[in-house]
C-alpha cells in the first residue's frame, strides 16, 4: 500500500514536471517568436520556431545549452542587448529551456 502510494506520488510528480516543462516550452516559444522585445526571431534563425533572422548566430548551429542562453539573456553578448530589465526570471528560464531543446543544445528528455 505504502509502495503503491509512493509509486503513484512519483508518477504524479513526473507528470506534473512534464506538464511544467511543456508549459515552459510553450511560453519560451511564444517569447522567442514575438513576446520578447525585441523578439529573438528578429535576429536569430531557429528552425523549430520557423524564424530566419540573420543578425545573430543561427541557433540550430550554435546549439547553446540552457545555461548559455540564460546567461546571454541576462548579460547580453557583444551586440546582443541584455533582457534582464524586460524579461522576468521565469521568462528567461522558459526561453532558455525552449532554445536549448529546440536547437538541440540540450537533448529532449
Amino acid at each position, binding site marked *: 500500500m505504502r509502495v503503491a502510494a509512493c509509486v503513484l506520488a512519483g508518477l504524479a510528480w513526473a507528470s506534473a514536471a512534464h506538464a511544467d516543462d511543456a508549459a515552459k516550452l510553450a511560453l519560451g516559444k511564444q517569447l522567442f517568436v514575438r513576446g520578447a522585445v*525585441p*523578439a529573438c526571431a*528578429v*535576429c536569430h534563425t531557429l528552425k523549430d520556431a520557423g524564424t530566419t*533572422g*540573420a*543578425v*545573430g*548566430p*543561427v541557433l540550430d*548551429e*550554435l546549439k547553446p545549452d540552457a545555461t*548559455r542562453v540564460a*546567461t*546571454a539573456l541576462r*548579460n*547580453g*553578448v*557583444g*551586440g546582443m*542587448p*541584455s533582457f*534582464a530589465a524586460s524579461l522576468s526570471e521565469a521568462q528567461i528560464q522558459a526561453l532558455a529551456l525552449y532554445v536549448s531543446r529546440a536547437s538541440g543544445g540540450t537533448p529532449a528528455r
Partner: protein
Amino acid sequence: MNPAHPLHRRHLLAGGATALAAVGLGGLSRSATAQAASAVPASAGPAAPKPLPAYAAWKDTNSLIVHSSSTLETRRGAFGTSVITPSEQLYIRNNLPPPDASVLADRDAWQISIEGVGQSRTLTLAQLKTLGLDTVATVLQCSGNGRGFFPSKPSGTPWTVGAAGCVVWSGVPVRALVAALGGVNKGLAFMTGTGGEKLPEGVDPKTVVVERSLPLKAMDDAILAWEMNGAPLSLAHGGPLRLVVPGYQGVNNIKYVKRLAFTERESEARIMSHGYRITPPGTKADPSQASVLEMNVKSWINSPLPDSANLKAGFHQIHGVAFGGLSPVKRVEVSVDGGKTWQDARFVGPDLGRFAWRQFVLQARLPAGAHTLISRATDTAGNVQPQERVENLSGYSNNSWADHAVQVVIA
C-alpha cells in the same frame, strides 16, 4: 616523465596505437575497442567541421576554426613567422551580417558622411582617394581574444589566441581628411564611426547598429582603409571601406563605414553604451564602466604547441608574437619552466612599425619530459604583461601570461 600527467596521456593518444602499445595499453582487446567505438552513435561522432560562410568562402579552411558564420578563428598552429597574417588565415568577427556583395561592384561609388567638421559632407571613395594616402601595419585583435581561458565561461565566442592577426592597410589618414574639410569643430570630444550593415526591421536601430565612439586623439593614427594586404579590401574584412584605428581593439575598427562623425558625446548605440564594457563579475554592464578601447601588452607562443608532431629532445626554436596597444613592445622573455625563470627572447623579422606585432624567438634545449612554455612582453611605456587576467563579465582583454602558457611533452 610522469605517466600520470594528463598531457602525457593526450600525447600518447595522439600518437596512436604504437604509443599505446609502448606503455602496455596495447593489450586492450580488439573487441573492447570495437565496443567502445560502437557505443557512440554515428550521428554523435566528432562533428564535421562547419563550412566557411559564403562571404568568406575564399578563406583557408585548414587554418581556421569556424565557431559560427560570424566568428572564424585562426588556429594557433597556423600562425607562421612572416610577420603578416595572410588574408586567407585572418580571423573574422562580425557583429552583424555583412552587406550584400553588390556593394563591391563599384567600390569608388561607396559613400561616407563626414560630420562635425568645418564642411560636413558626404564623400565617395573615389574622392577620398584624392585626399591622402598612408599605409600602416596593425595588429587587429578582437577584444574577446583569450575569452576561452576564463574559467567563468563568459557568453560569447571562446577564442583562445586566434582572434588576432597582423595586417597592412592602405587608405586616407583621417587627419588629412579632416584638414581638407576645415578641421574638427570646437568642443567635440569623440570620433564616432558607424557601420553600413543592413539593420533588421522592427528593432530600434540603436540596439543593433555597429557604432563606436573613440577619444578624439584616436584620429591621429586612424585611416579610412580600402586596401588590406595588397588587395582591395574584402567584404569579409569590411570592404569597400573600413575605419582602422591602430592600437585599438577590433570592434572599434568599423567595417563598411558609412559615417564618421566628430561628436560631443559617446554614441548611445547599445554596442557602445552597454556592449564591450569591462563589467565586474556579478554586476550589470553600464556606460560608467571602462569601454574596450586601447589594446594591452600581450604575447603568446605559437610553436611548439601541445599538438606539434614529433617533438624530440634537443634544440627548439620557441617562437610567437608580441604587441602593445599604443606603445610597441621592447622586450619579450620566455620561460621553459612554467614561469620560475625567464630568458630574453630575440626579435626576428622586420619591424613594421609601432602598431604591428613583433615576432620573437628563443632557442632552448628541451630534454625529454613535460615543459610549460610561457612568454611575457614589456612595452616601451614599461607595461609588463601580467600573470593574471582581470576578471570581467564578458571575458574581454585577457593578456594573462599564465593563461597563454603551453604545455608540451618531449619524447
